[in-house]
């Protein structure tokens, strides 16, 4: 099993998959990683639909322009806007749902990677179409689709901003530097 920092460092968005299926044991570990994500006001707005049926996977692919490749598994992450509003008000419904589901997604992507799987979070889909295909009730919104399977590619690291361009020390705009941080 990968060390957490190593998993973060080596994870990539995988869009080409081998045809092998993913075991239910691995799927449960991935779901558990999502379930244990941090949650504002402990709303836990996430709902997960595991899609293993080739017919349903194919329908989702057809209405998801950002869904490339043919993974043997997808997990669609939904947010429950109704219960989030009831417990968390507008902040809960409009912001924490997205933030919490994103944190759950990252946990799940890292869990998949640690299990030797590849995955990619997809936002390029028609929410209306996904709702229709999966027969989703009102108030439950699709947030992300995780494509999951055994990787059949090793993508390079995409360009990332250096730390001194995105991290600051004590005030916004004063670049973080390791030596300054140690003196403070």
């Amino acid at each position, binding site marked *: 099993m990968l060390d957490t920092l190593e998993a973060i460092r080596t994870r990539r968005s995988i869009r080409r998959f081998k045809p092998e299926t993913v075991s239910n044991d691995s799927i449960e570990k991935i779901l558990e990683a999502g379930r244990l994500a941090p949650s504002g006001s402990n709303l836990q707005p996430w709902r997960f639909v595991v899609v293993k049926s080739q*017919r349903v996977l194919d329908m989702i692919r057809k209405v998801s322009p950002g869904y490339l490749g043919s993974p043997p598994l997808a997990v669609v992450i939904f947010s429950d806007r109704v219960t989030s509003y009831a417990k968390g008000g507008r902040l809960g419904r409009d912001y924490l749902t997205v933030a919490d589901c994103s944190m759950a997604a990252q946990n799940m992507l890292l869990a998949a990677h640690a299990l030797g799987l590849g995955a990619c979070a997809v936002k390029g889909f028609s929410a209306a179409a996904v709702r229709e295909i999966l027969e989703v009730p009102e108030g439950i919104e699709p947030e992300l689709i995780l494509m999951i399977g055994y990787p059949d590619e090793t993508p390079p690291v995409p360009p990332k901003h250096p730390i001194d361009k995105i991290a600051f020390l004590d005030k916004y705009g004063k670049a973080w530097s390791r030596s300054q941080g140690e003196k403070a």
Partner: protein
Amino acid sequence: MKEERAITGDDYLLELVAFLATSARGCIDEPPMYGPLRLIEALSRLTDLPKYAKCLKEDEFLRNIKTEIEQKKQSLVFDVQEFQDMVDRIVLQVTKELKRRGSTSLIPPP
């Protein structure tokens, strides 16, 4: 559950329609650069039409374009210039192919 059957030209056409319709909706909210990406993806998928619509014949020129797209389309994430160069090359190749095959206007004469 429906029985498995071979994909027909009609099936593939409907799949293309689904891709274009959902892409059109997505492009309203998505980053502007996703527009070119969706169009190039649509182009790649169009080149597969002869596989399913038997009234069309396999076209090596289109197959080569698809190969280039599949190799380079993800470059948009890493290097916009590389993606742009690929699109420029495809436009030039298509223009040369139009010239080579001779123009047949779809517009009726006045």
